[in-house]
C-alpha cells in the first residue's frame, strides 16, 4: 500500500514537473516579450491603415514621390530642411532662422486658397549635399529686377551667414 502511494505521488510529481516545465517553455517571460513585441510592431504596422485625417502629414506623404511638388514649396529655391534634421517649418538643431526671407504665394489644393509662404533659410551650419534640392521660385524674375530676385543667400542678415537649408512657413492668407 505504501509502495503504491509512493509511486502515485512520484508520478504526480513527475507529471506536475513536466507540466510546469512545458508551461515555462510555452509561456516564459521571453516568449511573452516576443509575442508582446510582435503585437506592438504589428499594431504599428496596421495603425496607418486605420481611417484618420492625414492632411497634417501631407508633406511627408509627398516625400514618397515628389517632395518639391508639395504646395507650400511652390516658390522655394533651396535644400529642404525637412530632409536635414529639421521639419517643414523649423530649422535643424544648431542652425538659426534667417532674419530676412523670400515670400511667395502658393495655392493650397485642399481649400483652393492662396497663402503667403515665407521661405526662410536656416543658417550657421554647412550644407548637406544629399538633401533634396527644390527649385520652383514661382514669380521670380531675373537679377535686374532686384525686388523679384530670389537667387540670394537670405542668411546674409544673420551673424552666421553660412547657408544650411530652407523652410516653408505659412505666414497668412493672400487676400
Amino acid at each position, binding site marked *: 500500500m505504501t509502495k503504491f502511494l509512493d509511486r502515485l505521488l512520484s508520478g504526480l510529481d513527475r507529471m506536475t514537473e513536466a507540466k510546469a516545465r512545458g508551461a515555462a517553455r510555452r509561456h516564459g517571460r521571453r516568449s511573452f516579450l516576443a509575442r508582446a513585441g510582435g503585437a506592438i510592431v504589428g499594431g504599428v504596422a496596421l495603425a496607418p491603415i486605420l481611417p484618420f485625417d492625414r492632411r497634417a502629414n501631407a508633406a511627408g506623404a509627398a516625400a514618397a514621390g515628389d517632395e518639391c511638388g508639395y504646395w507650400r514649396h511652390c516658390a522655394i529655391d533651396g535644400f529642404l530642411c525637412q530632409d536635414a534634421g529639421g521639419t517643414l517649418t523649423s530649422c535643424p538643431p544648431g542652425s538659426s532662422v534667417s532674419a*530676412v526671407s523670400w515670400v*511667395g504665394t502658393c495655392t493650397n489644393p485642399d481649400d483652393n486658397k492662396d497663402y503667403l509662404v515665407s521661405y526662410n533659410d536656416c543658417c550657421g551650419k554647412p550644407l548637406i549635399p544629399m538633401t533634396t534640392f527644390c527649385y520652383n*521660385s514661382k*514669380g521670380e524674375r531675373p537679377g535686374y529686377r*532686384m*525686388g523679384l530676385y530670389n537667387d540670394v543667400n537670405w542668411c*546674409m542678415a*544673420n551673424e552666421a551667414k553660412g547657408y544650411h537649408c530652407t523652410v516653408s512657413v505659412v*505666414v497668412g492668407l493672400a487676400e
Partner: protein
Amino acid sequence: MSRRAATAAALALVLATGAQAQERSARANYVLLCSGCHNVSGLGSEEGGIPAFPGSVGKIAAFDRGRTYMMHVPGVVSNSMSNAEIAAVMNYILDTWAPEAGAAPFTAEEVTARRKLPIPDIVVERREVTEELAAKGIDIATYPWP
C-alpha cells in the same frame, strides 16, 4: 560683404508675385512685398541694416521730408504696386506700428507726387532726415549704413 549683401536684401524686397499685386489687402501686400526684410513683426534686422518700425516710422511720417524719404526707400522703389496700393501699405504700417504718432495718412496722389521728387542717394537722405529730426530732439531707429 555683409553690408553689401544686406543692401541686396534690402533692395530685393521679396516680390515673389509682384505682377499680381493687385486685389490684395494692404496687409497681404505688406507681408508679400515688405515683410521679407522688415519682418511680419516690423522689427527689421539690425545686423542686416533694416531699420525697425516701432518708435520710428511714425516720427518720420510726421515730418514732411521724412514722408518723401519713405517714398524712396528700396522696398517702395523696387516693388510692383500701384501708387494707391503703396499708400494703403504705408497706412497699414502707420496704423500697425505708429498708431499714436498722429502722422497723416498717405493718399495715392501724395505718393505719386513724392515719388516724382529726385532723391539721388537714399542713404544720404536718411542721414539728413535723421539729423534734422535729431535737431528737433526726435530720435529714430538706428541706421547702420555709412
